[in-house]
């Protein structure tokens, strides 16, 4: 009885919400009059009158996966932005240096004011974790943006021109994709004579390019044979306008979703490169991958100094993955309704 009532209420609500704009637009004119164009306007907000984005957002809001991901990402960004306020100490401060003795106590224990203890140089582990989020955010975002820019350029070239341009670009992309991404990133990063934060960013950006390029090229090709592109061509619209106004904006959706997923990959790969010592050699600015690398020697006796940065990396990239996956699902027309 109760569920039935609830269903009825929902239907009534729906009816009211569709009737309201109809009445508003009809402006007192008989809505049923078939030849009156104003009556036609009454039917405007039909089922498909809800925009793709709006309906995707509606489904996202109810998806627990998306909420968890979004909360994790939001927390991560807040921590990164407000790191100086949240962290009790500067990342290169060494308040615990006095407690370290190489043979008996290489790692300061957790104590008052230092809930996670210190690291091998007497710095506060918690503060370094908090500051580390900044490096991770910068590297992740810049590397993804770089990959996005390169991928969109190549994908647009291939999708817009087709023919031999498409073949050449896609063969290059195939070659890049055939190499394991981390191996490629390591190769590119080790080419730099002086490893720094930037070599990591560039290396990861290059690794991301082929993924974006292939994705964009695919949806550009689909757009090229679409009805609205044919209609635009039938009106003599210039080729550049067709590419940039009609094909590209309609192809970017999946690319943007992919970039959320790419953020998580970037973060993991940046950590991996730093872990291998291909990142910034200067450890005064904390970085999670670097901290993980530094923890290797003492991991057997003090697993917690490896656990915390690793956990941060996993949680943040999980957040981006959950968000990206649920967005992709929500925007996928096949899974709609």
């Amino acid at each position, binding site marked *: 009885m109760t569920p039935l009532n609830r269903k009825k209420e929902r239907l009534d609500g729906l009816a009211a919400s569709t009737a309201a704009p109809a009445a508003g637009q009809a402006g007192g004119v008989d809505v049923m009059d*078939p*030849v009156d*164009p*104003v009556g*036609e*306007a009454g*039917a*405007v*907000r*039909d089922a*498909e*009158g*809800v*925009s*793709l984005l709006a309906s995707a957002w509606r489904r996202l809001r109810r998806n627990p996966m998306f909420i968890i991901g979004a909360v994790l990402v939001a927390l991560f960004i807040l921590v990164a932005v407000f790191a100086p306020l949240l962290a009790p100490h500067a990342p290169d401060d060494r308040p615990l240096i006095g407690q370290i003795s190489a043979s008996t106590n290489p790692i300061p224990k957790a104590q008052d004011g230092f809930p996670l203890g210190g690291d091998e140089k007497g710095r506060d582990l918690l503060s370094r974790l908090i500051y580390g989020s900044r490096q991770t955010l910068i590297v992740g975002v810049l590397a993804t943006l770089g990959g996005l820019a390169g991928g969109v350029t190549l994908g647009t070239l291939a999708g817009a021109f087709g023919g031999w341009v498409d073949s050449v670009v896609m063969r290059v992309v195939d070659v890049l994709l055939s190499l394991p991404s981390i191996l490629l990133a390591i190769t590119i990063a080790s080419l730099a004579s002086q490893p720094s934060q930037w070599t990591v960013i560039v290396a990861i950006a290059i690794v991301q390019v082929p993924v974006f390029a292939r994705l964009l090229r695919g949806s550009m090709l689909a757009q090229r044979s*679409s*009805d*609205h592109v*044919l*209609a*635009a*061509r*039938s*009106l*003599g*619209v*210039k*080729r550049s*306008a067709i590419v940039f*106004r*009609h094909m590209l*904006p*309609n192809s970017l959706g999946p690319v943007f979703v992919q970039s959320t997923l790419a953020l998580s990959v970037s973060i993991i790969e940046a950590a991996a490169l730093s872990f291998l010592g291909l990142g910034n050699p200067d450890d005064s600015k904390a970085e999670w991958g670097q901290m993980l690398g530094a923890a290797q020697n003492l991991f057997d006796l003090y697993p917690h100094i490896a656990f915390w940065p690793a956990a941060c990396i996993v949680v943040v990239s999980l957040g981006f993955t959950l968000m990206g996956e649920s967005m992709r699902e929500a925007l996928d027309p096949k899974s709609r309704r």
Partner: protein
Amino acid sequence: MTATTTRTSRDARTSREPLLQVRDLSVTFRRSGEEPFHAVSGVSFDVQPGQTVGLVGESGCGKSVTSLAIMGLLPKRGNTVTGEAVFEGTDLLKLSPKQMRDRRGRDVAMIFQDPLSSLNPVVPIGRQVTEVMERHQGLSRKEAEPKARELLDKVGIPDPSRRLKEYPHQLSGGMRQRALIAMALACAPRLLIADEPTTALDVTIQAQILTLLKDLVQDSDTALIMITHDLGVVAGLCDEVNVLYGGRIVERADRHDLFARPRHPYTHGLLASIPRLDSARGERLNPVPGSVADNLPWDHACAFAPRCSNAVEACRTTQPELERIEGGVETPRLLRCHNPISEEA
């Protein structure tokens, strides 16, 4: 009353040069490892300024391919287009892609079947209309906007100022088709090709769109090529009707003659297959039997013969020619048939 006025005005028109002369248009699709497929062969017709010419036939008879060939919109590879489509003295089929791009939208425009998928989903309606004006008339976006508003008003979109800023998904089906018509009319083309413009719409909206097209064409003296499978559309709109079957014209007539006295068995079948309100209850519908898949090759037979109730021996051995026949007050009647329906029927 209206009939007499349109007739006199058309008499005046026929003395003019035709706006578009399609001569012997053929389109052949080639695929490696497959027999070439003749989608359209030897199609010829004239369109006078202000005239509405119908191309009628079932799916796959080549009517859309004909229009795409005239517009130069067929894919570059995999097909051969021969013949002529002379528009105001220039053969459109011989123009370079760039020259053709300059003409499309300015001199010749097209309206498509599905208004939702034919509009760019991420660009507001107004922008899509102004884009065409900017392209062909060298207007700035600011100059084009009031014109776009006027145009939306002209095609019957209420509250055009607001609609200009809306996206296609916010409009109803009829509104979208009106917007598409506005885009096609943006630069006042002299020839408009409408490819089944009402198929995706429901019946009341269909009537509105057809009335709109009719009025626009009459007001501006635009010629219209109407591509449709719907004989109701033909009856309401077209001056001259070409019935296509298997890529060839099988019958041409004035619409009054065509409806009153169809001579080709296929035309007759199309007319007979329309359900009638006044037929007895329980009476069966009369479809044209078979499908296009049964077609014989035109080279040495009539393609329609296997589905034709009037077929005689000759239909399966020799190709009928398109010949002038008796009748037809204004439009000369043409017929491609060995054994046509008798005139009294």
